C-alpha cells in the first residue's frame, strides 16, 4: 500500500511460514511481490487486496489476481475459514479499524499473519526521550503530519491486544533490520515484528 519504507519485512521469512499448496489472501498486497514469491516458491493459490489502482496494475502484470478495495470496509465478502492464510504485511498501522480487521482476519483465515513496525524499539524511544520529537528514522520515514501510519503500536501492545481478543499467538518472528532476534529483548530491539495467529474457525487445523 505504501512503499516509502526503506526496508520491508523479509518476505522469505513469511514464505517459510506458508505450507506448500495453501491458499493465501494478502490484505494491502501492494505490488504483489510477496504473493508472487508465495505462488512461485510455495505453490500457493494467491489473491491480493489493495486500494491503489497503480498497485492493481502491478499485480496484474505479475499475473496475480487482485481486488481493488478498501480494507476499512472489512472482509464481509469472504467466508469463514475460506483461506489457509490471511496476511497483513506492513498494513496494520494504516487501517482505521485494526481491531475489527484482526478479528476478521482470524475469521477468514485458518491462520493469520500480521507484521508491523515495532514503535517500541530503542531508536524511537531515544528520539522521543532525547529530542522530545516524534521519531523519524529509516524505519519510520514520515513526519507526523504527513504519514499513512495512524495506528502505531509496540510489540508488547500487540501481545496485549491478542490477549484481550483471546486470539492464540502461534509464534512470532522478531527482526532487527532484517536479522532475527530473540523474542525476549524484542520489544526494545526489534524494528519489525511478525505474529502468527490462530484462526477462530472451529475446524482450523492445529499448526
Amino acid at each position: 500500500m505504501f512503499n516509502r519504507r526503506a526496508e520491508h519485512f523479509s518476505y522469505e521469512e513469511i514464505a517459510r511460514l506458508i505450507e506448500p499448496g495453501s491458499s493465501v489472501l494478502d490484505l494491502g498486497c501492494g505490488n504483489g511481490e510477496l504473493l508472487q514469491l508465495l505462488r512461485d516458491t510455495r505453490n500457493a493459490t494467491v489473491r491480493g487486496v489493495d486500494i491503489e489502482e497503480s498497485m492493481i496494475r502491478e499485480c496484474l502484470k505479475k499475473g496475480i489476481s487482485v481486488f481493488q478495495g478498501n480494507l476499512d470496509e472489512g472482509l464481509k465478502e469472504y467466508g469463514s475459514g475460506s483461506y489457509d492464510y490471511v496476511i497483513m504485511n506492513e498494513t496494520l498501522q494504516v487501517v482505521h479499524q485494526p481491531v475489527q480487521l484482526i478479528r476478521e482476519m482470524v475469521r477468514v483465515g485458518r491462520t493469520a499473519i500480521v507484521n508491523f513496525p515495532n514503535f517500541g524499539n530503542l531508536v524511537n524511544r531515544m528520539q522521543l526521550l532525547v529530542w522530545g520529537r516524534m521519531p523519524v528514522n529509516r524505519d519510520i520515514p514520515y513526519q507526523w503530519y504527513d504519514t499513512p501510519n495512524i495506528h502505531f503500536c509496540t510489540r508488547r501492545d500487540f501481545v496485549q491486544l491478542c490477549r484481550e481478543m483471546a486470539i492464540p499467538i502461534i509464534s512470532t518472528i522478531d527482526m532487527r533490520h532484517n536479522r532475527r532476534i530473540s523474542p525476549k529483548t524484542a520489544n526494545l530491539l526489534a524494528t519489525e515484528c511478525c505474529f502468527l495467529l490462530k484462526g477462530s474457525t472451529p475446524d482450523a487445523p492445529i499448526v
Partner: protein
Amino acid sequence: MAPPNALIVTPRDYVFGTESDLLVLECGRTLGPVTIRYETYGNLDEHRQNAILLLHAFSGDAHAAGYHSPDDAHPGWWDSMIGPGKAFDTDQYYVICSNVLGGCRGSTGPGSTNPDTGRPYGLTFPVVTMQDMVTAQQRLISHLGIDRLLAVAGGSMGGMQAIQWSVSYPNNVAGAIVLASTARLNAQGIAFNAVGRNAIMSDPLWNGGDYYGGNTPDRGLSIARMVGHITYLSDRAMHERFGRRLQERAGFGFDFNDQFEVESYLEYKGGTFVDRFDANTYIYLSKAIDYFDLGGKYGGLDAAFTDCRSKFLVVSFTSDWLYPSYQSKEMVVALMRQEKDVSYVEIDCPFGHDSFLLETDRQGPMISSFLETVYTDVQSTR
C-alpha cells in the same frame, strides 16, 4: 481519410440456420437463416488458442478496428485498443468482433427480410436475449474452427455477453473481460430504456415497426439516442465539455431559438445516429438488456457462476452512474464466493459510462497483462 499504413479490413458474413439447423431462441421460437457479420484482426496461431471475441455495446457493430477503405473517415469503435502493440495485440492474438443477433449492422435483425414473407420482419422478429446473441456467436466461433476462446471481452451490453459466454460455455472461454457492466439491469436502467422505446414508438412514422421502404421514425430514434447519450456521460464530463455556453450567441435571446451547446450536441448525436441505426433494433436490443438478469435466471448469482471456469477481469468506473461500480462488485463478490479466479479494478475517471470506450491508457495495460496471464496458462496446460 484513413492514415497511411492503416489497417484495412473487410467485413465478412457467416450464414447458418438452414431448415434442419434453425437457431433455437430462449423464447422458444426458431430463426433461420441467420447472418452474422464479423471482422477479424491478426492471425490464428497453430494451436488455435489465441482467439479473442470482442462483444460490442448497444450501438456498436462488427467494425471494431481499422478502416474499411483508405477513404474511410473513421476507424472502428475500439481502434485505440486493438492493433499491433495495443491492449488487444494483433501481433499476438486473433481478434474477432461480430454484430449481435437482432442488430442492424449486417447481422440478422428486425430489419432483415423474413424468408417466409419476403418482407422485413419488423416486430414479427422474435425477441432475442443476451443468451441468444451468445448462441449465435458460438456458431460463428465454431465455424471459424475455434474450440476454446482465449478470451471474451466487452463493455456495457458487451460485458453482459462476456458474462453470459462464461456461464453458457464454461469450457470454451479461458478469460472473460467485463467492463462497465452488470449481471442484471436495475430499475433505473430499465427506466431509461423505456423512455427510449417510448420515444420511438410514439413517432407516427414508426407505424408499429412497419416502416421499411418508406419514411423512417428518425425523430423518435434520435430522441431515444439523446436520452441514451446523456446516460453514457457524467455530470462532470458534461460540465467540462459544454458548461452553460450558448451556441452561436453571446446572451439569451429570450425566445426559443437559442440553444445551449449541450442541446446542439445532443441534436447532432441524435441526428447522426439515425443514419446508421434501425429504430426496431433499438427496441429489440434495449429489451434484451432489460431482460438480462443472470441471478434471476439461474437462481442466484452464485448458482449462475458455479460451473464457470474462466478467469475474470472486471473493471468499473467511478463516474459511471448507469452501471455503477456496486453492480460490478456484486458480480465479483459472487465469483469470489464461488472461489473463481477474478480480479476487480475500479478506475477513477470522469467520463461516465462511456469511460470503457474512452479511457485506454489505464485499462489498456491491465487488459494486456490479464490476456498475457491467460495466454500463458492456456499454453502451459496444452
